[in-house]
Every structure is written in C-alpha cells, then in structure tokens.
C-alpha cells in the first residue's frame, strides 16, 4: 500500500487498509517511547502549528509531544491568544501560517468541516484534532489501537459506546474505524442522546446498559457534558449515573478480559466509578500513551508524501 494523503480529516474516508497502515506504523512509534533517546529525527526542520480554536489540553499536549518526539518545531496558537479573537477569518489565519512556511497544521475547531476547508486551500498538511460533532480521527485511531493491542484483532469484537452519541465526534470516528475493521458497534444511552438515525449506519442501539453489558468486549464511556444537561437532554448527572454509569456493581457483569475505555477527562462517579477507572478492566491510561504513538504515526505519514504524490 502507498500512503498518499497529506491530510488526516476523517476516518469515514479512509479504507480499512489505510487505517491498519496507521496502526502498524503507530506500533513501531510506540517503541520509540521506550528507547534511551525518546526522539527520532524524522521531521527535523519541519514546522508544525497547533491551531486550537476550541479549548483542549490533552489533545494539544499529545500532538505537541508527538511532534517534539519527531524533532519538528512546534508553535501553539489558541483562540484566546490569536487574531481569531480579533475577527480574522480562519482562512486568513491559515494563509498567514503558510506564509511562515508551516508544514503541518493541527486544527481543533467548533465547526464541522473546518479542517477540510483548510486542507483544500493549503499546501500544508492538515490534521483534524476534532471538528464540532463531526470527527476526532486521532481519538478513534488511538481507541482501536488500544483495543487491538489488548484483544489482538478488531474483527468480530462487540464494542459498546455509552453516553452522548448525538453530539460526539469521538463516537463518530470510533464507529467508522470499528465498522471498517469488522467490529459490531452497540450505541448505548438515553433516547435523547442516542437517536435511532444511527441504525442507518449499521450500529445497534440500546437504551439499557444492563441488558447488553455482559455481551461486550469493550465498553467505551464518553464524557457527559454539562451543557447537554442544561439543554434538557438528560435530567441530571445522578440519574445518568444510575442508568448509564459503570458502577462497581455493574462492572461485575463485564466479561472476563473486557476493556473499559474513556477518552478523558473522566468524571468519577458519573460515567464510571473510581474503582472501575482504576480497576483491572480499565485501559484508560494506555489510551493516553497510545494517543502519543498514534499521533506520531499520523504526523509522520502525512509529512512523508512528496507534493507530486498528493491525492
């Protein structure tokens, strides 16, 4: 297979082969973190701009560390410190970055499609670090990477995603990656947050966690956002936890070897109990470690494409 993408915008547009190629590359980059020198010179002389128009700490830090470990130079720009706050358009900001010879732009934006918009207009590679409720491809990749690492293969797995599916870019990227690699996806949560439309993409829907929990190989718990509660999608965190939280008692029903995942930051006592987050099923911190390896792989591959090969 030949990698020909300068950008990583969505997982929905990638083939299973491309996803596996990224995961295989990430497995090698994970080894770099165990070396005496945790740094390789692959992106020496290249400049990466972390353009975070929407707040994020862990994703930005992960991308920054990934770039540093590849020897790139990194500039961080956040919405509040940039000219975006002064009304400059996204396109003008990006054009300015390109005029400074940025090679890669990592974009987090509240508008779905913003990374695509930039990618079509710039020579620099654009990596989507989360766009609205659309996609968060590197999160989807690190989730399947973690599942593959622990369970061997994605094909045939039954993966439950619990919580705010409606507004979740993490859920969408997970659904695409898992389905392409042959897993069955079960979406679990209240009807307000898990609309029936998702059946159309081939996912199974359940509004009862207890009913399906014992079948699952992986339970991926999404963060519950308080804004949704204010907007009336669920009555309160107490009721949410009672129905959809992975309590210690509920975790007893997990299959032996089943994985508990969460993209972070976790709310102990809401999406899951503290004892479950720290318990034997939890791979939540592995996800953080793997995120770094996956982002190194993505930056490496997108930077590897010569201009004449860009598809």
């Amino acid at each position, binding site marked *: 297979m030949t*990698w020909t993408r300068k950008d990583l915008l969505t997982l929905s547009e990638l083939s299973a082969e491309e996803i596996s190629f990224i995961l295989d590359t990430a497995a090698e980059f994970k*080894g770099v973190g165990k070396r005496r*020198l945790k*740094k390789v010179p692959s*992106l020496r002389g290249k400049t990466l701009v972390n353009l975070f128009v929407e707040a994020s700490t862990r994703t930005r830090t992960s991308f920054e560390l990934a770039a540093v470990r590849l020897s790139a130079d990194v500039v961080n720009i956040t919405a509040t410190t940039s000219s975006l706050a002064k009304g400059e358009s996204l396109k003008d900001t990006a054009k300015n970055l390109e005029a400074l010879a940025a090679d890669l732009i990592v974009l987090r934006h509240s508008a779905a499609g913003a990374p695509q918009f930039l990618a079509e207009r710039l020579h620099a590679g654009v990596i989507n670090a989360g766009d609205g409720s659309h996609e968060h491809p590197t999160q989807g990749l690190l989730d399947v990477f973690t599942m593959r690492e622990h369970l061997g293969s994605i094909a045939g797995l039954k993966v439950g995603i619990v919580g705010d599916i409606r507004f979740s870019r993490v859920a969408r990227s997970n659904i695409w990656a898992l389905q392409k690699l042959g897993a069955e996806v079960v979406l679990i949560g209240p009807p307000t947050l898990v609309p029936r439309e998702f059946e159309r993409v081939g996912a199974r829907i359940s509004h009862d966690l207890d009913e399906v929990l014992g079948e699952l190989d992986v339970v991926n718990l999404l963060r519950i956002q308080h804004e949704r509660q204010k907007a009336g999608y669920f009555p309160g965190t107490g009721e949410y936890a009672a129905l959809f939280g992975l309590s210690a008692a509920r975790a007893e029903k997990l299959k032996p070897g089943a994985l508990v995942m969460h993209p972070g930051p976790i709310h102990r006592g809401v999406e899951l109990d503290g004892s479950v987050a720290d318990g034997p099923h939890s791979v939540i911190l592995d996800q953080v470690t793997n995120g770094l390896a996956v982002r190194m792989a993505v930056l490496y591959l997108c930077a590897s*494409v010569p201009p004449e*090969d860009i598809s």
Partner: protein
Amino acid sequence: MSNADSRQIVDAAGVAEAVAKLAGILSAALRNRGSVFLAGVPTRGVTLAARLQKALELAGMQVACGAVDISMHRDDLGLRSGVQPLRGTELPLDLENWSIVIVDDVQQTGRTARAAMEAVLAFGRPKRIFYAVLADRGGRELPVRPDFTALELPVPTQARLRVRLAENDGGEEGIFQS
C-alpha cells in the same frame, strides 16, 4: 526478473560464496573481541545477518543477530514516493556491552549507514559499531565506508543493482544489474 534489461552479474553460487567470504572476514576480525551482535537493515540485511550468524556458528563463533530499521532516521522524508511500512528494530538491551555490526546487502551512497548508526545510537552506547556489506557498488555521497565487504562491484551511479535472496524474493538468487 520483470525488467527485460536486467542481467545477472553474480549467480546463486556467487552469492553463497560471498556470504561465506564475509563470514570468514568477520570471524577473523571479531573473534575474541567480546559480544558481537549482527544488526541487519531490513529487508535483505536481516536475511544476510541470519545467514552470517549460521555460518559463524559453524565456524565455532557465537554471535547474536537482529535488526535495525532506519525508516525514522532517513534524511529524505517527504522527498520520495511511497513511504515504507516501519519494520521492527531488535537490538540487545545492554547495548554498552556489545559490538554492533550493521549488515546490509549493497552499499552505495552511505546514507543508509549514516541513518543506521544514528538509529543504533538512539538505543544506547555500544562498544563499537562496524559496517558490513555483501557488495560495495561505489557512488558515495557521504564519507562512510564499510569495514567488511565481500564483493566490489563498481557500477555507474544511474544503474540499478538488486540482490535477490530466496527468503525475500523467491526464485533464483543472484545480484542483478539494470
């Protein structure tokens, strides 16, 4: 060979002889020099390292063998088409106690040797690094020369030289020029 212009310049027996010759050179130079590790550069360097290990074993010299992937240390990322899948690196954990012999099939520019040395050094500080190649074709772009060479095969810079080994390529072994 798919390329009609390709001609065999070393036959299968010649490849076997060259491997035996290289093993002899290594044995003479490195016997009683402490722990020796043959680190092959993927793909054919890894195969050659395994063959050399076997030959040295028959000659009564124990060496370990593994691989050093140079992909992350190349100096041409984004300049050439078709990034290769990354291959594993397998080196001893206590690198400071070993002499490392980087093994490759053909040396030309010296860029692979430069990247392989840097890759090894990222893992630690070996006692020494040596460089062994089956064939030296000339055409250096960096001041790096092999310590151990079985064959000198000077060919023009624009010519393509390919080593075919049964484990990697199947079919008839040999060195082919096109």
